[in-house]
């Protein structure tokens, strides 16, 4: 029972539980909180996978910024989740969706069954693996173009959301 396995089990279970909680919870705000917890557990898993920078990114950007956005929207629109009270027109879809989900999991697991058996055959990693400096250098030198493209994407998203959410008082 190495430390990593222990971490994996606890955090993995947490992630799984919170993920299903997000889907099952009636109250929207609770769903947001569950998702934040899920993000946290995933961040810890990243640390276990010695991906330090990404873990912090996850917390700062995902948990810190995106989920706050969700929280704001939920609070502003005070989504009480009453919307789900009405009868569901596509009720028959539920079992089918669940079945398909299970099949997907089964398929992925079967696909990677080979990887299960291989004992930690992973290669050794040099010390700077996953550190902020390493990711940073790779980002600004190796992957210059994707970085610029993501900046354009973000710009577009900002402009888009501003235009969308702006109150139409001028017209």
């Amino acid at each position: 029972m190495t430390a990593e396995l222990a971490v994996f089990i606890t955090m993995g279970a947490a992630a799984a539980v919170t993920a299903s909680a997000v889907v099952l919870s009636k109250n929207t705000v609770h769903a947001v909180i569950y998702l934040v917890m899920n993000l946290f557990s995933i961040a810890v898993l990243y640390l276990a996978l010695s991906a330090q920078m990404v873990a912090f990114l996850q917390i700062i950007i995902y948990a810190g910024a995106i989920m706050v956005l969700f929280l704001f929207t939920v609070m502003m629109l005070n989504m009480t989740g009453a919307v789900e009270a009405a009868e569901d027109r596509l009720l028959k879809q539920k079992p089918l969706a669940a079945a398909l989900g299970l099949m997907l999991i089964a398929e992925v697991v079967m696909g990677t069954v080979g990887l299960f058996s291989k004992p930690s055959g992973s290669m050794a990693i040099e010390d700077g693996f996953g550190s902020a400096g390493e990711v940073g250098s790779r980002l600004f030198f190796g992957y210059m173009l994707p970085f610029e493209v993501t900046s354009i994407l973000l710009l577009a998203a900002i402009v888009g959301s501003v235009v969308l959410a702006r109150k139409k008082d001028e017209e």
Partner: protein
Amino acid sequence: MGYAWLAIGFPLLGSLINGIFGRFLPKKAVGWTACFAVGASFAVSALVFAQMLVMPETSRHVVSALYTWLEAGGFRADMAILIDALSVTMMLVVTGVGLLIHIYSVGYMGGDTGFSRFFAYMNLFVASMLLLVMAENFVVLFIGWELVGICSYLLISFWYEKPSAAAAGRKAFITTRIGDVGFTLGVVLIAAVLGTVSYDAVFGRIIGVGSDMAAAIALLLLIGAIGKSAQLPLHVWLPDAMEGPTPVSALIHAATMVTAGVYLIVRAAPIFVQAPWVLALAAGIGAATALFASSVALVENDIKRVLAYSTISQIGLMFLAVGAGAFAAGMFHLVTHAFFKSLLFLGAGSVMHALSGNTSLNKMGGLAKKMRATYAAMVIGALAMAGIFPLSGFFSKEALLAGAFHAPFFGRIVYAAGLAVSVMTAFYIFRLIYKTFHGESRMSEEGWRHAHESPISMTAPMSLLALGAVCVGWIGLPSRIGQVVIASNNAFEEFLRGSVSAVAFGNEAVSQWWMAAAALGAGLLGIFAAWCCFIRFRGIASVFVRKLSGVYQMLVSGFWIDQAYDRVFIRSGRALAGFMARQVDIGIIDGAVNGIAGCVGSVSGMLSRVQTGYMRSYALAVLAGAVVIAGYALFILK
């Protein structure tokens, strides 16, 4: 010989003038142009004939090509004409008789409104008949053949307001078309097998082709001939063709068109000779048709229909002669027949003219006193046809029967049939004469008063024809009867020998004395029997009718062939057409089209329902797709 084209050119020109400007020209001018056109054509033919006589025997075969009409790969067909003995004789007959009939019809059609249209068609007919006769190859022959068919249709249904005339025209055209199909296939087969259509080349190569192919071609050409010459299976249109004006019947259904079939067989003799059983078939059909037609003519009461059946039986005799191999005798009978039959028709025409259109023999009688000239001409024609000694009919019929007699195995049977036909011919023609001209008049009083002799413009051509009917026979005097030599050779056969190279079965038929006597006797017997029935013992006819009423009915209705055809072909044809129209056309075709449209509509309807608008069902579809693809990648790709 290039000027020979003018023979066709003049009538063509005449028909164009009358056709286009006819309405604006006065009737006299139209008449004159028409007659002048045919007259000029007759003059050209006579000139050609004269030049032909001067030329030596062997070189009487001139081909004049105008231009290459069809050329495809190895196959070539020129617009060309062939001048030889056979074509000249036919030219003389067509233009000679044609001229006289044109002159006659100026008087006869005087009162008709379509005067110019009539002459345009008549001229066109003469031109196309000449084209047919003078053709140098089968394709031009085919053009002439079809044009003649069209002209006969136009002329039969000349009075198109009359529904019966229109129906008769249609019937004639369709029946001849059936024959034409055979003829066309024959021409195509020739072109395909022999690679060429001009006569000389065809007759040259036909030997190498083998008898069964020759037989096939011959059979197909025979079918065409049967259709055009109204022989037994396809004869039904000729009696109905009497709906057309009488000069038309005279020209087309006596002298020229119906004989085209005989001309075709004579012209294509080398092919037929290659297939003896086809000739025998022709002879058989000829005999059967002759017997059938003459028997029906015995009881026919319409003056023109009698003559129609008589024409059918006479052509049957020609077929018999040709089938038996006596090509020259057949042609000779054709020539003589042209004269006396057109004479009889014109006579009937003037009688109808006098009785203002009445054609039923029962309503005539005693016209001799009133119409002396017509009566005289009709009697001469009747005597000629019956085959009485000095007249042309005797010589041609005798030659014909002698030729038939010498045919190899069926000669005897055919000869007997010929004699029987001669007897019946004599009987029905004189029955006609007695019913029309002798005895008391069975006409209404004022009809009798109205009856008068036709004007000179009609009686003149008739008298000329009567002269022809008498003299034409002498050109075909047999070289010898039995042992007595009458002339160095038979002038007519001698003249024809150049072009009708293959004389049948090696020797020319030598007629014996008893044969001549038998022919003459048959004619006299027929006349005597007619005399008894209709002059001496007037009642016998009605007795016969009552006693043999079954036979009488059969004969009157023409062996019910017409009704049979109607029931078998017409009705089933109409039923088939109906079926096709309703079930097939509406049911299947329309059904299919509408069906396709319908199912496309329904399919698209179903498809549009798939787009439910619910975003979540789309998500489900995406997930399903993902699962499928993952499965595929997992199980199949690995």
